Each structure stands twice: as C-alpha cells, then as structure tokens.
C-alpha cells in the first residue's frame, strides 16, 4: 500500500514534468528564447518595445559564463534550447566554428560593424558582433604610483601586489593571458612563459574568477592587492555605481606604453534548428539598432560595436587609447596556452 502511495506521488511528479513541456496555446505571443551569459543586461523598456513590435515574448535563459554558454550550445547542436545565442566571443568561437551550431545570417547593419572587428571571427556569417571590450590591469589609486610596465610587476616592489584570474576558468583571465602572449611572444629570449614564471616567483595571486579577484583580493575592496586584472571600463563603472559619492574613479587603468591589448568581441547568432529563426534574426537586427547600441555602455560596460554611436558623459573614464592586438587564435592554440599556463602555474 505504501509502495502504491509513493509510486502515485512519483507519477504525479512525472505528469507535471510532461505538462510543463507541452507547447503554448495559439494566439499568445511567440516565445523567443535567448540564451545569454550571466553578465547580459539591457534596458527593460527596449526589450518590451521589441516584444510589442513583433507580438513576441522574450525569455532570457542565463547560462553562466561564456564557456558554459558555448558548452551548452555544443551539447545541443541541431536541437537548441533557444533561438538566439548571445555572448560567444572570439576566444570561445573557435570551439563552435564549423560545427553547425549557428545558421548563417547577414544582419541589416553588418556593413556598419568595423571590418577589423568582424575579422576577429574570420568574417564568419554564423555570428554577428554586438560589442567589444578590453581587459587591462586596474590600479587602486590609494596605493601610490601605478606600475609603468608589465615587466615591473616581476620586480621586488610589486611582490604580492598583483591578483589575476585563472585563464582555465575565467574569461578576463584568459584575455589577460592572451595579452601577455601577444606582448612577450611565443618564441625568443624572454617568452610569455618566462614572464609568468617570474610573476609566480613574485607572488602573483590567482583566483578562479573575476568576482573573487575584484571583490575579495583587490585592495579597493578590503583585500591586500592594489593591482588586479579587470576591464578597461571598470574605473568608469566605479563612478557609475558609486552611489553619487564619486566624481572621479578610485581606480585607474594601467596600460603600458606600446602594449597592445587583446580585444574581446562578443557576438550573437541564430541557433541552427531554432523554433523561430525569423524572429531570432529580427532580434539580432534589433541588437544592432542605435537604441540598443546606445545603452550597452551603462548596462554591460562594454563598447558598442556600431561606429559613431552617441555615448554617455561619464563614459569618458572608460575611453582608452589602445591598439587592439592583431593576435589570431584557433581553438587548439587557446587550449595549448591554457594547458601550458596550468602546468606552469597550478602544479
């Protein structure tokens, strides 16, 4: 008898499961599912305007970081859980390229995206670039004079002063590794490996993600280390989120002379096998419109990809005169960096 009761309860649970999977009724707005990384953000009224315009309901599925996002897409090729994916970047794109994850699409404003940005995805039509950003060293202004070069950080005055993220688990960590590869090179008398070995000897601290590095270890937030790997927009974000108490950033970007920063470009694509591919394409076009591009700085703290977009006043703290590194990467190369770095730093 008790067996029967339990089995009935389990059957009930099972029927709820099936019920939830049932398709929606007619006449309701079409549900557009957009798979995004956890940092995705946008103005709610813009999304509502899109929904009204297309008689749609936008559902955001959040997938963790860019790596998890891409893993999810890879696990469900041809049978996607969403219609559109946003947040694949030029470091994770090589993992999905040529695997049939996305279906090709030429956005209406594609020509307004700078050619060198598109080139970071090999000008592939599988994805449409939406925004970009740079990772740089951030310095806590309370701590005196910032370092002037990358090399300086391997010297005694900077012992135990730097905190970075693990490139195996963190997107900014991987971008900073790419910047050091591009700066020091793979071959020669002093390679990126030598640099990291010296950093290790000088007490660099490695955290698994940005949040632990910035919120826990960075001296701006109760930690002990005045130099952190973060974004070039973080000082501006400090002012924006300073609750009106800050007129100037408490932190600053450290970009050594002649250093070329790795440029991270984030893109969106229509997933192959999507239920509503046409609506998905319209959503990507919508992301390139002026209205959406203009709010990118204050919602996601990255640079809009369409040239000539009007920017907010406080964004001046995020403007940096940097050259993007010309580094081209394929999946095998990125894997090799991470493996070599892990061997060097984590064993």
């Amino acid at each position, binding site marked *: *008898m008790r*067996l029967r009761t*339990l*089995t009935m*309860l*389990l059957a009930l*649970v099972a029927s*709820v*499961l*099936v019920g*939830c*999977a049932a398709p929606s009724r007619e006449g309701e707005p079409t549900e557009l*599912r957009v798979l995004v990384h*956890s*940092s*995705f953000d946008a*103005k*709610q009224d813009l*999304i509502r305007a899109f929904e009204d315009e297309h008689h749609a309901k936008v*559902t*955001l*599925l*959040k997938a*963790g970081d860019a790596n*998890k996002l891409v*893993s*999810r897409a*890879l*696990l*469900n090729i041809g*049978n996607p*859980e969403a219609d559109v994916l946003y947040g694949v970047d030029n470091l994770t794109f090589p993992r999905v390229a040529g695997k049939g994850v996305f279906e090709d699409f030429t956005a209406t404003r594609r020509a307004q995206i700078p050619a060198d940005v598109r080139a970071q995805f090999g000008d592939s039509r599988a994805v449409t670039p939406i925004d970009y950003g740079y990772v740089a060293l951030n310095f806590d202004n309370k701590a005196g004079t910032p370092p002037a070069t990358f090399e300086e950080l391997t010297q005694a005055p900077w012992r135990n002063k730097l905190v970075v993220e*693990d490139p*195996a*688990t963190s997107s900014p960590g991987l971008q900073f590794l790419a910047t050091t590869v591009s700066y020091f090179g793979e071959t020669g008398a002093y390679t990126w490996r030598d640099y990291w070995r010296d950093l290790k000897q000088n007490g660099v*601290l490695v955290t*698994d993600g*940005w*949040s*632990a590095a*910035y*919120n*826990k270890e960075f001296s701006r*937030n*109760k*930690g*002990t280390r005045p130099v952190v790997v973060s*974004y070039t927009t973080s000082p501006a974000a*400090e002012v*924006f*989120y*300073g*609750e009106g*108490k800050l007129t100037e950033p408490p932190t600053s970007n450290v970009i050594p002379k002649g250093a070329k920063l790795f440029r991270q470009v984030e893109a969106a694509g229509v997933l192959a096998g999507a239920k509503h591919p046409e609506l998905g394409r319209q959503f990507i076009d919508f992301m390139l419109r002026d209205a959406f591009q203009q709010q990118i700085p204050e*919602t996601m*703290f990255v640079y809009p990809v369409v040239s000539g977009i009007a920017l907010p006043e406080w964004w001046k703290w995020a403007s940096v005169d940097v050259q993007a590194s010309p580094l081209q990467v394929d999946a095998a190369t990125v*894997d090799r960096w991470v493996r070599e770095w*892990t061997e060097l730093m*984590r*064993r």
Partner: protein
Amino acid sequence: MNATQRVSTEGSGWRWALPALLFVAPLLLWPAGTILVQGLAPDGRLSVDVARAVAGDAYYWERLAFSLGQAAASTTLALVVGLPAAWVFALVRFPGRSLLRALVTVPFVLPTIVVALAFERLLGPGGWAGRAAEAMGLAMPGVSGTIWAILLAHVFYNVSVVIRIVGGVWANLDPATLEAAQMLGAGRIRRFTAVTLPALLPAVLSASALVFMFCFTAFGTVLLLGGGDPHLDTLEVVVYRLTTRLVDLPEASVVAIAQVLTTVLVLLVYAQLQRRVARPLGQRARHARRLRDLGWGQRLLVLLVLALLTAFVVVPLGALVHGALTVGNEGRLTTEHFARLFEDSGNTSYVAPASALRWSLTFALGSTAIALLVGLAAGMAVARSRGVLGVLYDGAFMLPLAIPAVTLGFGYLVTFNRAPVDLRGSAVLVLLAHALIGYPFVMRAVLGPVRALDPELVEAARMLGASRRRAWLRVTLPLVARGLFVGAAFAFGISLGEFGATLLLQRQEFATVPVAIYEALGRPGDANLGAALAMATVLMGVSAAAFFVIERVRYREVGEF
C-alpha cells in the same frame, strides 16, 4: 521473539528501494552517466589511454590524497566543535537556545562567495580577528588564504549537521537506561562510555559521513578561501578546471569517475561500520535541564561551547551584516544598500527582492516535499535490507553528493532535451535538481531513528491485529518523524542556498536570491557589492526565521530535539 516476523520486517527493503530508485535513476544515474560516457568516449570509443595517463600521473594521486586528508581534518574539527554543542542543545535549557540553534544552521544557505567575503572581513588585514588579537597584545597568525581558512569555513558550514543529527538522538535517549546503569553502580564516565556513547555512535557516524562527503567534494570554499594555492586544490576543483573550457574532455571524465569511485568506496566502508554499531534503543523525550541546575564543571562546559559557536558561526555572520551596512561609507552604518534593493534599475538584470524570495521559497518548499518522500523511502530501504544489498543501497542513494553539480547540470541538458520531456528552461528541473541534493540529508537523518526502532514495538502492534500499513503509520512513522524534521531543515536550507544547478538551468524570471547575489558580485562598484551583501543579509534573516519556526513547531509535535 518470533524469527519469521523479524525477517518479514527486515527483508522488505526492495518495496522501499523501488520508488526511491525510480526517482534517482532518471534524475541522477542516467544524466550523469550520459555526460561521463560522452566525455570518456567522444568518438564512441572508450579512451583507455587517458585513464592510464591519469592513473600514472602522481599529480592526481596527490590531489586525491589532499582531498581525503582535508575532508578527514574538517570532519574531525566539526565533531570537536559539534559534539559538545550537540550535548548543550540536547540537554541544557538556556535563554536564546532556539535562536542560536536556528542561527547555527544559517551557514547552510549562504553562497560560498558571500562566506568568503565575510571571512576576509574577519581574518584579512585590518579584520576583526586581527584587531581583537592586537588589542590583547597578540599577533594574529596569517590564516587568510591558507588551509586553515578552508578548515574554518568547513566547520562554519557543517557544525550544524553534527549538532542536529547527533543532538536529535541525544535528546531522546531513554533516561531509564542511564538510571539503571547508575543503580548498578556505574560512575559518570562509565555511564557515558557504556551507555550514551554506543547509543550515539550511529548518529555520529551518520553526521560524519555527510560532513566528510561535503568536504571531500569541496569546491567553492577551496577556490575562494585557498588563496589560489594549487597545493590546496581538491579533485572537484580539478574537474571544474578541466570542464570549464571543454565539457567533452576525457581527462575531466576520468577524474570525475575516480572521485565518484572513491566516494563509493568510503561510503561502503562507512555503511559496513554503521551496520555494526546500529542497535535498537529505547527512545523517550528527555527534559532539558536549566542552566542553574547544572554543576560548576558542566556550566563551564556550556559557556565554552557557546563561546566556540559564537566565534565559529555567529561572528562570521555578524561580519556579513556589518559589511552590508558599511560598504562604501568608510565604516559608517547606513541602511541605504537595503533601500536600494527595492529601486528598479529598469534593466533586465534587476531582481526585485520579493520576486527572488518568492522563487527561492517556492523551490525550497517544493524540493523539500519531494526530498522528504524520496529520503524516507531511501532510508527505509537501507534500514530494511540485509547484507550486501543494504550496503549497496546506502552507497547508491548517497551518490547525489558525490557527483559534481556542473556534471549533473550538463547531464540534464543532454538527457531531458526531446519531447515529451524537454525540460530545458523549465522550473521543474530546478525543483528536481534541488530535491536530488536534498534527499540524502533526509535519508541520513531518518536512518538513525529507523535503525534505533525496537522491532518488538512493530511486532507487538502486528500481533494485536494491526495491518502492516497501520503498524507502520502508527508505530514507525511517529518515531521517524523526528528524523524527517531534521532532514527537512537541511533539504530546505540546501535548496535556499544552491546556485550551481540553478545557474545552469535558470530563466531570468526564476532568479533566486543566491543568483541575484552572484550577479551583483559580477559587477564593479560599491552599489553592487552593497546590494550583494544586503541581499545575503536578507537571505540570512529569512532562513534564520524559517529554521526558528521549524524549531517551534517541532517542540510541540514530536518532543525535544
């Protein structure tokens, strides 16, 4: 005692095992198995070379040894702090007892990153501990970023498991047995070693098994409190590092499988031990004594225990609240971060506190209900099965604690992805995932009372003409109810605080409190750090209130524990 009847109660394990297996097989074994096999054999062929390479690499053996060692150390410490505390809560009445017991369970629901921030405020430079030591003229040892920080966090998280599971049995030991021993001339120490200790041993083992599993698969605490020291990586961290970039990496699968096998091995040894020490006990609620009725020695012990609990649990919680009240204001107290939680930023990422709480509580209540059913069935199955089968059930039903959450999350995405059970993006998946990690706690908490149940009670009821079902409902269930309450508290807490699976399966509108905290911590600036800490304080308050209510209800219905 009638031998055939004894057998009929003991051998009924499969009736209980069946429904529990019907839950565990599709929700755990199938998805986790699929993802691990996919990783191990990406082209359909098993890659034996990888397994051989991993087995031949000293690095992985070192990580395994470290994982086991720190888990053993954490468990020992949790017992050292938890056992005296279990005694105090079980047998002594003092002002604020319910509140303190509720507070001690709160760590269970706090996301690791929040705990790490609290510990940094406590143990880091200029932290409370350092300043207190300085005031006393002592030098504060550098704990931050060492194995000690990890161990402290593990005690912080797990001491309530010991307190509740052992304390539950302790409070209900039949005083008649102790009185009998006293009359037979046994002294205080002899009474403890000959009567109390053997009676408590199954519960102590149960609690130790849970704490050990939790610490063996430790992940967040190690990543966030280990100070990035690679010598402090557990196997779980190694798997995480390998899977983050490439889910189909054979190496990650081999390591994950090795971790599961080790856990199973440990569990089998444990289950064997547990069977040996289990014995029927007389159970009766004992009245806790008031503080002033105790002798001087016992009073001192009570004070010592309270001081320890305050240091290990209450102070870190206080550091968190203090942070929420002071971020960005140079030490001045202000409630502005709490007020800001209610201001809609107009962004899609804005999570209203009421909405986050509603989802958190919905998932927690729903998953606790499922966890109670499954945990009860699993516990009965283990207790009622003889020999190897019982040991095997025990190992199998504990697996949810051994399989990395990320592995399970990805497993769900590849198994529940076709009609009619396409659950991707469904709230039900979150509910079931939470129930899956919650029920082992119910099972462990139920096992003790079921094993301690005197079979003669059930037999007496049967002989008086009660049907098997009626005997179970009238005799077994009321005695097991105590364990169900303890288990429910943990299942509830686990669900409230969980975010690994939630993060992997969530829709924006289902954002729970831990998800909102995690997202706020993903952005720079005082407003975000303040919002995260304020949200964490709210989570703390709500869970403390919930645990407090559970305490009060329990008192009236099932006696003391």
